[in-house]
């Protein structure tokens, strides 16, 4: 018995090495699962506060471009508002709100962002207290940014579109052809549109928007434009490269969207189609 203990004692450094590596690998896997530990990431309070202070300081350097982007978004919204407002010489019927798709919107600031790894995440300065819940869609005036992964009281972590684990249900605006958009991990301004069959005709320059099928995003939020479409090497699907419309290296303010009917939709689909 004593021999065994002596043996283990001599190996103590190696055993600690194995234990620490297993611990690290364990954290990597729990963190990457969809329900991953929320505490151990940049949305926990201490880290969030530090990032917030850093961002407060740095944001002064980009006030001009931020203001310009917000002004552009305002102009676009004013245009839409103008089209929606009732015209004097016609009667309008108000549609029952049950029929409308109920989306709620929030705005938030990006306080941490990365674009160079394969699993990139974004941290926002709003959390559970502001009504942010996991699963909400994230976009800015240029297009889709990602999806909320986890929240703490005051901060939220977002899976960036630049994350090889995130799929966005999308379609081509002109032809209504739909597919899934996924980042290929190569360039921060390019992604792939998957699962589009070979017989579909795709032209470079066509606009790709969210499809609205998965109830995370409303329909029609821009994602990017087709850069090139080639027959895939071995699959039955086309190999489509997409130029993303969002400049991820310069994210400042974003919008969050929540579909109020999502739970109902999800549970209905679970019941009828199965998981």
């Amino acid at each position, binding site marked *: 018995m004593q021999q065994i203990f002596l043996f283990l004692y001599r190996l*103590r*450094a*190696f055993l*600690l*090495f194995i234990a*620490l*590596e297993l*611990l*690290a*690998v*364990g*954290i*990597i896997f729990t*963190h990457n699962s969809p329900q991953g*530990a929320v505490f*151990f*990431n*940049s949305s*926990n309070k201490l*880290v969030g506060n*530090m*990032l917030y202070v*850093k961002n407060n300081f740095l944001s002064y350097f980009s006030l001009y471009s931020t203001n310009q982007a917000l002004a552009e978004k305002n102009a676009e919204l004013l245009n839409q508002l103008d089209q929606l407002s009732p015209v004097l010489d016609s009667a309008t019927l108000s549609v029952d709100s049950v029929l409308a798709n109920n989306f709620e919107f929030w705005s938030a600031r990006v306080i*941490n962002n*990365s*674009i*160079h*790894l*394969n*699993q*990139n*995440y974004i*941290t926002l300065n709003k959390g559970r207290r502001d009504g942010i819940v996991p699963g909400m869609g994230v976009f800015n005036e240029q297009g889709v940014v990602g999806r909320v992964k986890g929240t703490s009281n005051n901060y939220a*972590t977002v899976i960036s579109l630049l994350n*090889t684990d995130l799929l966005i249900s999308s379609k081509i605006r002109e032809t209504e052809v739909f597919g899934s958009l996924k980042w*290929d*991990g*190569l*360039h*921060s301004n390019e992604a792939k549109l998957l699962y589009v069959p070979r017989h579909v005709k795709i032209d470079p320059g066509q606009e790709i928007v969210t499809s609205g099928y998965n109830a995370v995003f409303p329909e029609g939020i821009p994602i990017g434009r087709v850069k090139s479409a080639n027959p895939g090497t071995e699959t039955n699907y086309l190999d489509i490269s997409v130029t993303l419309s969002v400049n991820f290296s310069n994210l400042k303010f974003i919008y969050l969207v929540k579909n109020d009917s999502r739970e109902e939709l999800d549970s209905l689909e679970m019941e009828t189609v199965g998981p």
Partner: protein
Amino acid sequence: MTTGKILKYSLGFVIYFLIQVFILKDLVLFGYAFSFLYVFFILGLPHEMPAIPIMLIGFFMGILIDLFYDSLGMHAASAVLLGFLRNPWIQVNTPTGGYDDNVPPTLLNMGMGWYLFYSIPLILIHHLLFFYIDILGTELYLPFVIRVAGSLAFTFILGIIVQAVFYKKERVI
């Protein structure tokens, strides 16, 4: 280890950590070359320090940096591996006459030739593990190689500059 030294290394830990997460995190050259300067803190710990405290220091440093990188466990795993391999590698590189006590293995103390041979393989292994975990599940081998090579060069050059500018020579001849 004297109290003064413990204070000195604790301060070093904090400074390397803050510089890593607040400055170097946003500094990625050409989208490929990262700088993980904190490895030089682990490399510069006293050579008479046993592997167990080095690995624990590496683990905590890695976890703290992971929190800010949102790459939980990746820096920790790489830094623990670095800490584990460091002492055997120092043994292999023993210069003729052995090491002097109280002389940490830094660039100015040991000279460029020794330091190149000491640091490059260890940094390479750290980067290989880090970026390998990053590409797990994908087949992006070319970006992997570019990232490892670019980051190795960037980290090493920055580390050499930092040591040349901010470190003191401690060897007494």
